[in-house]
């Protein structure tokens, strides 16, 4: 599987993402944000970080980068897109996923493990998980509070577009397990077509036991699996 990891000025998970894409998915290339074309690839990965220093709004300026036109075209062709943390913020600002990521309700930058409940195991990103699995994966963000207006939220729920929810260790999606004030405990959503996933937690930082958790490993195994199936 070939992955294009997009680098924006201020990306800081680009090399972690490249490492995982190269070693777990097979082949990866770094692509600078000002490029106007993508290499031939199966997956575009928008990594975490602080693109453009989070000026204006998180992800807002990166969403205007020349490469994002190509990322949109890749998604429209059915190509896979994964946005993690700042990558999720960029996807919402680019209009590729609904909603917005707002300042954490605690006003604190949060950098710790959270528990996530897997809501769907029928996506290209989660097909080796089982719905209801509870994962332990780190978050590292200041603007991770998911917001969408009531109609959008209702539509997302009706269409089963929430893939990951913050939960307690036992998998209860309640305020106690919600680190940042996200509506409906939303940690990650997918587009209607099922090829664009955005999530605030960092599965790439939980791919080896040495890192403290390997609960994110299956997300990448799922991607390989989805490619083998299609």
């Amino acid at each position, binding site marked *: 599987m070939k992955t294009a990891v997009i680098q924006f000025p201020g990306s800081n998970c680009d090399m972690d993402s490249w490492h995982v894409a190269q070693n777990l998915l097979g082949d990866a290339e770094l692509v600078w944000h000002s490029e106007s074309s993508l290499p031939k690839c199966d997956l575009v990965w928008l990594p975490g970080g602080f693109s453009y220093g989070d000026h*204006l709004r998180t992800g807002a300026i990166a969403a205007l980068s020349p490469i994002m036109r190509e990322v949109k075209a890749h998604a429209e062709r059915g190509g896979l897109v994964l946005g993690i943390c700042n990558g999720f913020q960029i996807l919402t600002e680019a209009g590729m996923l609904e909603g917005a990521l707002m300042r954490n309700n*605690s006003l604190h930058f949060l950098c710790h493990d959270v528990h996530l409940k897997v809501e769907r195991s029928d996506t290209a990103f989660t097909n080796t998980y089982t719905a209801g699995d509870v994962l332990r994966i780190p978050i590292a963000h200041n603007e991770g509070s998911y917001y969408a207006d009531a109609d959008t939220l209702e539509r997302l729920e009706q269409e089963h577009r929430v893939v990951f929810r913050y939960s307690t260790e036992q998998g209860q999606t309640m305020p106690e397990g919600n680190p940042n004030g996200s509506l409906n405990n939303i940690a990650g959503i997918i587009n209607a077509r099922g090829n664009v996933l955005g999530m605030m937690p960092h599965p790439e930082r939980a791919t080896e036991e040495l890192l403290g958790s390997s609960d994110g490993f299956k997300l990448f195994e799922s991607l390989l699996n989805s490619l083998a199936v299609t």
Partner: protein
Amino acid sequence: MKYQAKVYVTLKKSILDPQGRTVEHNLHRAGHSSITGVRIGKYIELSLEGELATVEAELKEIAETILSNPIMEDVRYALEEVSVTV
């Protein structure tokens, strides 16, 4: 013609503003107990040049689609002609 634009971006009224709430709480602690409704936003200044109608349309477009995110923010803006002094 040259114009100066002033753009104000605030969180939508329906959205809780944790920053505003914290400031309000601490204003109360500092003795300003009658203060309510603290909301924190952004103020952006920029200059534009061209025909008034074109400039107005351009300002509207950038204010509503780039300088603010309509999902979570409200925006208002004002345009002023800049008098050129020699």
